[in-house]
């Protein structure tokens, strides 16, 4: 059965023995067919190797093919920049153009007297475009190499540009921005970069085209790179790659490196083949918008939908929005059968333990990791219709699987996409972008677009015409104008920090998964978080508990405030912001040890409930136990193991929790240990009972 599975080359040779042998052989002799991509060469090599046996593969399935992944990218630039030529070149050089398409191309070019075969004609789909010589809508193109399948969202450069690019960019992993080497960075290049940043496309490629017309000058290329870098400084783009090309001649597209020996980087196709995909996905926050209820009979009720972010396992406790009722996942049905978990992107059917009323538009989330659920928020909206956006008009907002009446309460400002300046405005016209305040009739369940594209995006429909008139990306909660500015400043500084901290950060699954480590260790990983004021006895109890666990053969780690503040967090003080950052970092460190399969004990004052909840949200349900350790203020000051209360009294230090800084105690559901009446030994016993490790 699997004799010929391995290589395309073998298949090709077989096909040549058929009745079409002559025709195929003829085309194989074409120069174009002789051009081999690196990938194709690989296939040829594989053909000479003996067939690997013992691999059970269904009829005809090419294992290589099943390993191919998918990259969606968009191309930005005008016809003059040679965008269509570039796409034509990619299709042509990767041999994705069929003979009949090629013939049609030759015929059309001949009829128009265009000279050599015009690759741009390949992508101009509609007749109107062919007549006017411009593309007017987003068109999708497909090509594949043995490594990867590509979907190009080809967006036109002239009218309606913003609308089309926003559409094409909404699902793209990467954007190719074309710049004419003779003209350099133009207003429109800035616009393209801004829109890419707005839509949070993870990777940007700046293709400096028509290098042949500037004598393949390295100096000119460098100049353009510097220009582009200078203005993109203020944009939120992680990863920019610059490639000098000539689409017309094929320089640095698939191969053709000889004209620019000074360029040492990858060719465009090589880059497209190797760039990381899936960076848009949020792997942390489980969000499951219910799409459809499946009820084949009285006994079964399942909730169909796509896991738009995060993942969930059978047995985990979940909350249903908007009812906020809790239940447990009892089954995960994937399209190919039952599974123990559902991962990001999968379309599944979830079964739950309790009879709860759930319908389309509801959202299933983890109990301690809940999105915003309200009717007011701020968003950046791209307007896509000739009828301008009207403040106060009743529109329909589609967000995840929810539709609700909504209106724009206010336009904070319009963004000039060419200068990036903010302008006063009380309407948004076609192709304009603005920051607006939205009010919905029913609550929606959202995260900021930056954190979660799937739950941070929406479309606006005009109920009078049923047409999609706008697209929005949620920024923040509704704020007053003053707060709004502060929030934006925070956004900007977060962007700057993200840049300083190194770009191109992409989430990778652990090489060895926690489950495997837990299996090897023979016990589950867990986090125990001790909170409470200084002197309450957190560390004493934690140390004693760790010894106990260690003796029982568990892998453990104890993190406490003093340790991390000397090293990892030595740059932080004791103000609210720094305390927050302190706890955030500790949470991340605990997460690393947790993923390593440890029982992690953390002993931190951690006075703010919000910070503790943020840490809790990092861990799966049931794997994080909070322990509140406290004693009478008098006892604390008497114990004063570090002399902190004495110093505070003397005015030597400020902002001591429980003295002159607030402590937000946990709620009733958290294990509370009062060390006035409980000694360390008893505390350990109680915690172990609670944990049931």
């Amino acid at each position: 059965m699997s004799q010929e599975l391995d290589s395309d080359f073998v298949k090709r040779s077989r096909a040549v023995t058929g009745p079409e042998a002559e025709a195929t052989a003829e085309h194989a002799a074409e120069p174009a067919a002789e051009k081999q991509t690196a990938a194709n060469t690989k296939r040829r090599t594989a053909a000479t190797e003996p067939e690997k046996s013992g691999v059970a593969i269904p009829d005809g399935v090419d294992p290589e093919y099943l390993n191919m992944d998918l990259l969606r990218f968009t191309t930005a630039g005008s016809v003059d920049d040679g965008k269509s030529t570039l796409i034509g070149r990619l299709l042509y050089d990767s041999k994705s153009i069929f003979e009949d398409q090629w013939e049609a191309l030759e015929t059309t070019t001949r009829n128009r007297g265009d000279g050599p075969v015009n690759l741009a004609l390949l992508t101009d789909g509609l007749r109107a475009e062919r007549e006017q010589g411009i593309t007017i809508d987003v068109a999708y193109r497909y090509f594949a190499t043995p490594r990867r399948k590509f979907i190009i969202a080809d967006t036109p450069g002239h009218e309606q540009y913003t609308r089309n690019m926003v559409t094409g960019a909404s699902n793209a992993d990467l954007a190719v921005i074309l710049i004419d080497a003779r003209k350099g960075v133009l207003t429109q290049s800035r616009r393209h970069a801004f829109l890419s940043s707005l839509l949070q496309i993870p990777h940007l490629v700046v293709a400096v085209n028509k290098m042949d017309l500037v004598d393949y000058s390295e100096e000119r290329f460098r100049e353009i790179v510097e220009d582009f870098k200078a203005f993109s400084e203020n944009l939120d783009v992680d990863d920019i790659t610059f490639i000098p090309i000539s689409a017309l001649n094929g320089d640095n597209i698939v191969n053709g490196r000889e004209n620019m020996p000074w360029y040492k980087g990858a060719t465009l196709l090589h880059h497209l083949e190797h760039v990381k995909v899936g960076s848009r996905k949020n792997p942390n926050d489980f969000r499951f918008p219910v799409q459809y209820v499946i009820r084949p009979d009285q006994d079964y009720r399942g909730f169909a939908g796509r896991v738009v972010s995060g993942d969930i396992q059978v047995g985990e406790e979940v909350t249903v929005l908007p009812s906020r009722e809790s239940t447990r996942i009892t089954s995960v049905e994937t399209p190919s059968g039952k599974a123990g978990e559902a991962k990001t992107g999968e379309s599944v059917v979830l079964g739950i333990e309790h009879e709860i009323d759930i319908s389309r538009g509801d959202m299933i989330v983890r109990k301690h990791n809940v999105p915003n659920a309200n009717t007011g928020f701020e968003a950046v909206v791209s307007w896509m219709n000739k009828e301008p956006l009207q403040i106060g008009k009743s529109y329909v907002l589609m967000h995840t699987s929810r539709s609700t009446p909504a209106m724009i309460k206010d336009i904070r400002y319009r963004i000039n996409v060419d200068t990036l300046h903010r302008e006063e405005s009380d309407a948004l016209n076609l192709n304009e972008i603005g920051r607006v305040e939205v009010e919905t009739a029913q609550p929606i369940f959202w995260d900021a677009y930056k954190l979660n594209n799937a739950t941070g995006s929406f479309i606006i429909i005009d109920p009078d015409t049923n047409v999609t008139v706008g697209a929005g990306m949620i920024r923040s909660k509704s704020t007053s104008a003053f707060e709004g500015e502060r929030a934006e400043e925070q956004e900007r500084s977060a962007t700057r920090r993200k840049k300083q901290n190194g770009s191109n950060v992409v989430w990778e699954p652990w090489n060895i998964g926690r489950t495997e480590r837990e299996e090897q260790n023979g016990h589950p990983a867990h986090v125990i978080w001790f909170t409470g004021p200084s002197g309450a006895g957190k560390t004493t109890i934690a140390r004693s508990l760790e010894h106990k666990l260690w003796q029982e053969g568990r892998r453990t780690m104890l993190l406490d405030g003093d340790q991390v503040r000397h090293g990892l967090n030595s740059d932080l003080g004791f103000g609210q912001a720094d305390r927050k950052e302190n706890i955030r970092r500790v949470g991340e460190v605990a997460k690393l040890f947790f993923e390593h399969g440890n029982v992690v004990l953390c002993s931190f004052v951690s006075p703010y409930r919000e910070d503790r909840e943020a840490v809790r949200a990092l861990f799966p349900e049931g794997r994080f136990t909070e322990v509140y350790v406290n004693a009478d203020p008098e006892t604390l000051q008497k114990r004063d193991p570090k002399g902190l209360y004495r110093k505070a009294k003397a005015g030597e230090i400020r902002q001591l929790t429980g003295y002159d800084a607030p402590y937000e105690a946990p709620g009733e559901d958290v294990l509370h240990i009062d060390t006035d009446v409980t000694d360390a030994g008893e505390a350990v016993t109680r915690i172990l009972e609670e944990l049931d490790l």
Partner: protein
Amino acid sequence: MKSDSTEPEVPGQDTGNTAVLQPEDWSRRNSHLKVLEEEAIFIMREVAAQFERPVLLFSGGKDSIVMVHLAEKAFRPGKFPFPLMHIDTGHNFDETITFRDDLVRRTGARLIVGSVQESIERGRVREETGPEASRNALQTVTLLDTLKEHQVDCALGGGRRDEEKARAKERFFSHRNAFGQWDPKNQRPELWSQFNGRKNVGEHFRVFPLSNWTEMDVWQYIAAERIPIPSLYFSHRRKVFNRRGTWLDNSDFITRYPEEEPVEKTVRFRTIGDATCTGAVLSHASTMEEIIAEVAAARVTERGNRHDDKRSEAAMEDRKKQGYF
């Protein structure tokens, strides 16, 4: 036409009931095929949720067979909540009808048939005559009549964007006005995973879950999922004749020119539609892997053999505006 004894065995047929397929190794991997499957399933569920009377257009071709397979997966453990609709030109290959009826029996789906023959008899359309006669264009009227008769508000189709230039700009959710027409210049933007299916009474949508699939993806998926397909796709001996470079079935439905002499050849079909305009290719590909090899090496698009597209450069676009599939 009668199939002879040399007809190749259809892979996958022996796997029996496809509804109980075991999860294949590939299905949990991060492959592009899985991404495409997830996308298609998401769209189908969206259709079930947003429309009142959707149907799945079933032609008997491989794309619509894949569509039925995906529909089964999308609503498991339930049944898919829409009927199949077949627009029957009356000029079918026998295998297509047998296959269709078996599929209907197995899935328990309801089947609606719109008959071009009836449209002709009722005087809705006039039959073309002569050697170039085809019922392909007439289908559009029957399709629109049948959709109207059953008050269908959404028709799921197996169309793919890679098939033809005009389809490259087709949306997943494609709006049709009360006359069933498509307005390519005034399409709704589609962003993220938001699909706007709002419409007025009398209008409907065509929805294409396989938009992002290529011919190769479809074949690989059929192989990976072991989906049974009609034997016409595998090479067999058949009486055919050559018209302007295309091999057409020596069918009772086609009037031959005097010089068109039927000959027996080893052929297979890359697409299956109306027998009068579906061209065969000379091929010895009699197994799934050979077909895939042939597709990989192919230098002509699938539709390159569709007689109906050859009439003019913008042929497809014109027909789509009229309400064609």
